[in-house]
């Protein structure tokens, strides 16, 4: 699975995800990537999210929308919301994986609860990098 999230100079956010799914998956099996609110989500009111990992777990938790809801309804900041869902909730149901998220304020969060996640980030005039583990 691959994905990107962005916040442009006008403050608009967007997300995109694409995947081959799981090795040796049954024909017809679909994971979280194409399901809005599970593996992919974007709203200028809060954030944009693209997820990767155990698709069934991300579907059951509605991961991407859950992050939006915690920011919108509980006033959580992006990283608190994203980490809470991935490190606490996803782990609690035995799911594994990670996600990338950008906030309407330009904040970036890249949590994962497995060995690693291929990732890159760039904030204009600020931090830029790539990492694996």
């Amino acid at each position: 699975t691959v994905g990107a999230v962005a916040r442009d100079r006008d403050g608009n956010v967007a997300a995109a995800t694409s995947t081959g799914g799981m090795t040796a998956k049954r024909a017809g099996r679909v994971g979280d990537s194409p399901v809005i609110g599970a593996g992919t989500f974007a709203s200028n009111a809060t954030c944009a999210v693209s997820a990767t990992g155990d698709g069934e777990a991300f579907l059951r938790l509605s991961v991407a929308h859950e992050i939006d809801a915690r920011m919108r309804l509980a006033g959580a900041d992006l990283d608190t919301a994203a980490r809470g869902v991935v490190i606490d909730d996803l782990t609690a149901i035995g799911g594994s994986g990670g996600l990338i998220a950008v906030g309407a304020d330009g904040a970036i969060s890249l949590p994962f609860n497995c060995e690693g996640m291929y990732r890159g980030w760039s904030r204009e005039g600020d931090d830029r990098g790539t990492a694996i583990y």
Partner: protein
Amino acid sequence: MSTGFSLAIHGGAGVLPTADMTQERAARTHAALDRILAVGEAILLRGGSALDAVDATVCALEDEPLFNAGRGAVFTRAGTHEMDACIMDGRTRAAGAVAGIMGPRNPVRTARAVMEATPHVLMIGDGALEVARAADLPFEDADYFFTQERRDALDSTLAMEAAGTLDDDPSRRHG
């Protein structure tokens, strides 16, 4: 509130275990992430939209066989490819998604065509392929998506399943 752009990309969480990751492989992966990050940065630096940035960046990720999407996607147990993709615009909450398709070189472009050329959000199979053809998107045959590494992963997974030795390594579930 920052006025500059922010961009993040991922190539999946099913990373090779540390023990299997050679320095050469790690260097290739970092170089690919760096090159693809620059695709999105170039669009954002000239004032482009977040939507165009994620569209172009995910296309570049799909074209990179190191990652599980587009060229280099994993195989189903039948030895075929079934790809899914999605794009969403935070300005309007417009969204397009496709599932279970094989053919369009860049599945994320088909998802965008669903968003921009139909009243729907999620489309599957042949209907989604019709939208891709109507949008004149490039198609590829099965060989284009094939990589020996993914074929070997399928064969070893099926062999372990048959032998009852398939471990529950979560990264295997990540494709």
